[in-house]
């Protein structure tokens, strides 16, 4: 019975140690993050803007045409009517 109590006691100590340990890890992580954050913000001022080419998505089957105005027309001031035609051939 005494051995059993000791076991529980030991288990509690282990649990306490683990929880303490992880919390100290957490705070270490936090401080590390803060350090890297401040480094990053310093770099941001110095670093140049980077330009990266993205992949252009193609869809040759989607066709769009301006039906109105037909082109080189002259309109009276005010409302100009537009008509767009969308077709997909795919």
């Amino acid at each position, binding site marked *: 019975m005494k051995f059993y109590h000791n076991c529980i006691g030991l288990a509690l100590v282990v649990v306490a140690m683990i929880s303490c340990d992880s919390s100290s890890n957490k705070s270490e992580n936090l401080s590390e993050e803060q350090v890297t954050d401040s480094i990053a913000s310093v770099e941001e001022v110095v670093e140049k803007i980077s330009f*990266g080419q993205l992949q*252009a998505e193609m869809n040759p089957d*989607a066709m769009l045409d301006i039906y109105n105005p037909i082109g080189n027309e002259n*309109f009276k*001031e005010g409302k100009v009517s537009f*008509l767009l035609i969308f077709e997909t051939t795919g």
Partner: protein
Amino acid sequence: MLSLNGASPKPYSMPNFLMDLNKGTYRAVAFLLNEEGLSLKEYGNFSARDFTVGESRPFPEDDAPYVILHLPAEQQAYAPEEAVIVDFLYLGGGPESDGVKVKIEIDGQEYYTQEIAPVQLSKLSKGPHSLKISLVGAANDQEIGGVFASETRNIIIE
């Protein structure tokens, strides 16, 4: 989407609509977006028309290629970690056959490309920025002529 005279394009979900226009000379460029909200850039995916309102003088005859800037829109605001994507249409033959390059300028930094593809900018500092896109000669880096030789947009990183 429809851009008038190179201004920030506006979305239209209906095929027919009316626009209230003052006297002037206009070039309308209509284009389609993909599911990611980027413009489709191939011949046939877009359409352009010139017209005048109130007997305004038409644009001079001009076959020069030009770009229409889809993104960023004027006064577009971005969250600090949000990607700034420059999405443009090229109206012409092709940068290589036309002997031009697309030039993107921001904060005194320049980027040149002959690919018609979106460009992602990163590491922009907080605050306002002015972005300019233009077509320049492939050999001399000089801006080519034409009514729509360049477009400038102001954006804000919050």
